[in-house]
């Protein structure tokens, strides 16, 4: 049975512009979408592309694989949290479906168009930055990926106050930074601590999301006659 490292070697042909394009698309989805299934999937795929790019920067492929595993564990935490949350939220949603859906459609369309435009602007800025101020120690395409993730991460943090969206933003930002920093300072201890920090951030975000659902449920119960 092939190991994770073998699999990474097999798909290494993607570890250039296709991976950067993949990161652009997945980060864009995270900026625009509020559908948790799509977002968790996008984050999972994003970690895959980040790992692919990391294989070009790290001599020890195992380290890249471990970083990928941490990323996918984070996605698993998010998936389980959101699944639980969606089940808890379903009941009040069904009761108020018709009126709130009409409202939400309008709300989403305005928000999506704004986020799309902001995302495109960030992409242009990231592209220009990668051309004008290329990051040291990394190839130009990885420099672009770093700028894209940092930009999209900041955008998500700036535009949202909900735990999950802020969490996606923080983790995207950290992944972008990690991609650059791993080339600049190839230290196993730093890589481990950054991975640990990312995982703990994911746990904290999941905890806040749970608190959000619990509090909303309690408010709903109080309001119900």
């Amino acid at each position, binding site marked *: 049975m092939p190991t994770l490292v073998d699999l990474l070697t097999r798909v290494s042909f993607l570890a250039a512009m296709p991976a950067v394009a993949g990161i652009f698309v997945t980060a864009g989805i995270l900026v625009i979408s509020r559908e948790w299934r799509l977002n968790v999937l996008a984050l999972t795929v994003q970690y895959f592309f980040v790992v692919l790019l990391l294989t070009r920067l790290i001599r020890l492929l195992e380290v890249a694989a471990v970083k990928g595993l941490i990323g996918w564990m984070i996605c698993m935490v998010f998936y389980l949290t959101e699944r639980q949350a969606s089940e808890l939220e379903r009941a009040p949603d069904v009761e108020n479906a018709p009126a709130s859906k009409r409202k939400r459609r309008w709300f989403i369309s305005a928000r999506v168009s704004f986020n799309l435009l902001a995302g495109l602007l960030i992409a242009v800025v990231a592209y220009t930055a990668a051309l004008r101020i290329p990051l040291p120690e990394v190839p130009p395409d990885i420099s672009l990926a770093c700028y894209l993730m940092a930009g999209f991460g900041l955008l998500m943090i700036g535009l949202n106050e909900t735990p999950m969206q*802020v969490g996606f933003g923080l983790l995207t930002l950290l992944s972008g930074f990690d991609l650059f*920093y791993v080339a600049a300072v190839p230290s196993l201890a730093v890589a481990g601590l950054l991975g640990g920090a990312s995982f703990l951030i994911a746990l904290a975000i999941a905890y806040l999301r749970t608190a959000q659902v619990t509090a909303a449920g309690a408010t709903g119960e109080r309001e119900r006659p």
Partner: protein
Amino acid sequence: MIAGPILLLLIPLVMAGVTYLLLRWASLSSLLAVGTALALGFAVITLPMDRPVSLFPFLGEGREIALGETVRFFGRELVLEQGDRMAMAFLFFTSAAIFLLAWRFAPHSLLTPIGLGLLSLLSGALLIQPLIYAALLIEIAAALSIFGLQPEGQLPTRGGMRYLTFTTLALPGLLVTHWLLDLYTLTPDNTGLLNAATSLLVLSFALLLGVVPFHTWVPAMASDGVPLASTFVLTVGNGAVWFMLLDFLETYPWLSRHPLFSSVVLIAGTSMVIVGGLLAPAQRRLGSLMGYAVLADNGATLIALGMSNKLGLALALLSLWVRPASLILMATGLSGLRAQSGGNDSFDALWGLGWKAPWSAAALIMGGVSVAGLPVSAGFVWRWALYRTLAPFNPGTALLVLLASVGVIIGLWRGLFALLTRPRSAEDRSVTPPLSSEGWLTGAVVLVAIAICVGIGLFPQTFAPLTIQAAETYTFFSP
């Protein structure tokens, strides 16, 4: 022989697990946490650095503790230097005070286990070499603190999320700075590296210390986090960041000799003082009032550091030491009042509550007075020294710090007015509210805390020499 630094990391971590398991028995759990923090604090200041000591002779030889011994932990060095002792003692004693008040005002909360876990991480941040790892440990501590900050059954803490966000944003700058400075030692002609490192460092510490415009996490955390947990972050967590900043200045002395150092730090501090002082009286909630009061106080500390001399450094350290005495009292009062008003700390919800929860009201007012730096309180000790030092050279800044205190006092006065207004009967007549709903034990704990706060204010000579001594261990402002 056991290396002391490793014990300072492991004991709080182990006790975090123990207190979590005992959380059902709130008193036992809290008092265990208090005991642990106090014991470690006393150990740090009393054990000799230059020779091993045997604390438990009955365990036989080889069970000695060497506090000053360097130890390798996962390939990194943990070193307890003379300058770190005061910093570590500050972390442990402040935590002990918070845990003690949490026993009465936040029992069953995650504050004690999470606080001990944070103590371990923040101790590691102060002990570990090189400083790059300190930044990573502070980031991990920020993520962990979310679990303590989130109040039970309430919406997610905005302040906690912002704190995590700003700490995460500061992390890349600190890590890249370290790398740039390593590059600079190889190519000393490339001064561009030095300038880039300085800019990143300034930005990162501005984010970590809540300098305007990155201050939004401070009032938000005080407003919607568990009050004593917020205080833990704003005193112990913030203290660790301050000591990390001083370590940076000590390791890279060219930073404090930069021609713009004094101006940048003074501008940053003054902006915090202005924003804190202007927005504090406009608040309609006690939590956010506390946040802006801390912002102004932290700004005044930056102003003290911006004086770029030993006296300024001693004043900054003194402010760090006395701030917990004020802030813990204020948070205690806030906890008690929120418990009485169902979690709401707006002035409207607190109407007349001072009669029902007099100890909490007293703690809040005394803490607020101290944060504002009024006489006969702990905060006055360092504020008075700051005014006297600043006034001859920079009277404008001294006046701004004074006006910020006035702003905080106005906000506090409005809160006091709401708290002490007697409830009215249906016939619109003032009625005598029921007796205090707080127990005598709670009253006794609050009374001791107030006595400590006033005691520091009346006898500053107990604290001041210690901070001057601590300032002597830093050499970056030496001529």
